[in-house]
């Protein structure tokens, strides 16, 4: 019904705007297109002054090169703080699997990093947000002000102290040095507080009168009510940590510990003009997350919107 009405009055402005939108959309999709096609182009076609809009010859050499670089075990997991209680003063490391190209490891590291940050952030923020919204306790407003102020703080500001701190905790060059600051970033707490405000106080009161413990009240009553918020926060944290290049740059150094973003940056520094190889790396980084995004597109948009409404 609505669309019918629209069809009746196609104004020149609408035609114009649709054309502009299509052109813009092409421009926005172009870098991705250029990454994907570039990764299959020959060195000669990449370095030619006349760009090949469609590869005249499709080659796998760039991917061969990418995967023939250093190898590392498929999985390696350093137990945080384990050097403090292991017998020889070294980190306890679990590792397994066949040797795979380092680029594959970067992808695995990134997935682990993003998922671990996401889960830790959701758990800690949901608890903290609930407490800030629903508990009346001393220091609550001061804490909340602190959180709001710290929210906008760029992490670069504290890079030097953070690096020294990670060094003394012996977390430097482990993925935890990237994960922990992400979890500490208080946006999640703020968001969860906004969501928790919506939990009716009388329901909590009723639970208390029924003699439910604090933990039980939280899990049984509060958690189900803020679930949509947790979903939004999860998506937020996932994207943010996936793209959080800066922390990774400072905290990670071994080839086998890099994330995919850092790995491509390293590829670029080492082979700064071998754009075919770099595009292969970029494609490897971009395609999995884009597939995830397309698969969960609806949730992504919902999550983003919900975060904004409450944020």
């Amino acid at each position, binding site marked *: 019904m609505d669309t019918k009405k629209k069809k009746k009055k196609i104004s020149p402005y609408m035609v114009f705007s649709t054309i502009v939108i299509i052109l813009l959309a092409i421009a926005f999709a172009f870098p991705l297109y250029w990454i994907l096609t570039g990764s299959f182009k020959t060195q000669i076609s990449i370095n030619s002054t006349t760009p090949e809009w469609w590869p005249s010859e499709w080659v796998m050499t760039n991917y061969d090169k990418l995967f023939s670089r*250093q190898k590392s075990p498929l999985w390696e997991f350093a137990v945080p703080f384990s050097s403090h209680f292991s017998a020889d003063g070294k980190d306890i490391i679990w590792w*397994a699997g066949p040797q795979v190209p380092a680029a594959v490891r970067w992808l695995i590291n990134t997935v682990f990093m993003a*998922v671990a940050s996401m889960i830790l952030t959701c758990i800690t923020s949901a608890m903290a947000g609930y407490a800030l919204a629903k508990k009346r306790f001393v220091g609550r407003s001061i804490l909340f002000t602190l959180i709001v102020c710290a929210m906008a703080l760029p992490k670069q500001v504290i890079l*030097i102290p953070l690096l020294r701190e*990670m060094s003394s905790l012996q977390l430097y060059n482990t993925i935890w040095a990237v994960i922990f600051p992400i979890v500490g970033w208080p946006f999640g707490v703020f968001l969860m507080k906004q969501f928790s405000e919506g939990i009716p106080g009388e329901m909590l009161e009723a639970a208390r009168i029924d003699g439910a413990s604090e933990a039980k009240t939280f899990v049984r009553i509060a958690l189900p009510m803020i*679930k949509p918020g947790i979903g939004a926060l999860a998506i937020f944290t996932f994207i943010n940590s996936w793209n959080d290049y800066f922390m990774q740059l400072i905290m990670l*150094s071994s*080839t086998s510990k890099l994330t995919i973003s850092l790995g491509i940056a390293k590829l670029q*520094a080492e082979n700064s003009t071998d754009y075919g190889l770099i595009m292969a790396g970029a494609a490897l980084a971009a395609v999995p997350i884009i597939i995830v995004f397309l698969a969960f597109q609806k*949730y992504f948009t919902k999550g983003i919107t919900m975060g904004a409404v409450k944020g």
Partner: protein
Amino acid sequence: MKKQVSAILAASMAASMLVACGGSTSSAATSTATAESTSTASSEAAPAESTADAGQAADITLWTYPIGKWGDSESVDALLADFNAQYPDIHVTVEYLDYTNGDDQVNTAIEGGSAPDIVMEGPERLVANWGAKGLMADLSDLWTDDQKADISASVEAACKDSSGAYYEFPLCMTAHCMAINKTVFEAAGAMQYVDAENHTWTTDNFLKAVQAVYDSGKTDVGAIYCSGQGGDQGTRAIINNMYGGTFTDAAHTKYTADSAENVKAIETLYNQDGINFDASINGGEEITLFRNGTLQMAFCWNIAQQTNADNSAAGTTNSGDDILFMAFPTESGDPALCGGIWGFGVFDNGDENKIAASKTFINFMANSDETAKAVKTSTYFSVKNSLSDLYKDDEVMNEYQKLMPYLGDYYQVTPGWAEARTAWWNMLQQVGQGTDVTTAVTEFCNTANAAASAS
């Protein structure tokens, strides 16, 4: 809906954790057996102290800059296999650095408390930078009298600091030079300005040659690249050589890049058709542009580039044009080429055992039967007189020997070097944007000399 998404994400996380923990215990043993160079968990599997000449068991880390094939994991793995055949209890983990971010990476690692045990690079970093900051272990015991007799005094001088502590044990060396696209030069009638026999030319002829190539329609002749420090010795060498300027004083105490000779050279280059000050590329990128025919000369060149055959036959560009290596142009006819001296330095991480193991490694690579192979991996010349005939059958290497006598002062060990080279490319960027040369160079010298006197 939200339920589903969080459930799926949580499930995937749980799955990956399970894979992690489940797999670890069962297959750790098998992977230890393969004993590849990245292993960090294998130390407990080595209680055997029976090995005759090993003596120590240690996990050490080696970080190499891309020095010839020392930047290539396949070649290095071959060397490590030889090393482990003799010293099975010393496990070496290798990381490969690049010249764009490598320094940042080492510096963050130092600050992060995880500096590598061995770094392979030159005196400008090992001695003048980290050595001067007190981070390196003294390698005097590697410098026996035999070694000193076998290595030239100027190389030795570069490897030690003013107090006499040695922070580098050298492996290989070369002279940095420049290169021209001979085919293009011939077509442009510019070869008349070049002494192809001796690989030299005068400043005047250099400028005429550039003009001739430019006039022939190849408008991008050369680039004073300055996006970062990668390959910056090339830009310093062309500027210093043209009118006989120097980069520092002879005693290596202060920077003299603001001398009239240097200012004249920079101004001449800036005004020359066909030479761009390009702040978007570094030395490595310049080489690629030279190889693919975009640029007709490269200032960042040396024997490793000349013999590199990754993308085309050695000594030719991607399209098959001949590449001729050249000394930098001078008025006097006596160029002073920048040297590269690469070797090993050891970070003092407070663990005597690791330092000892590192020294064992260095001795094996730089002072044993393996040395010839280690040097050849670098594709440069040996620092040792006893290995001077290493490439006696190699025509290109022999031809390149013609440049070695022009090896100039190794000024890269002047105090404040790291700060000075950062200021250098900033200065070139300023000139490229039209800042007055004298102003820019004076500012450079003030910054550099301030850093020199501070350290």
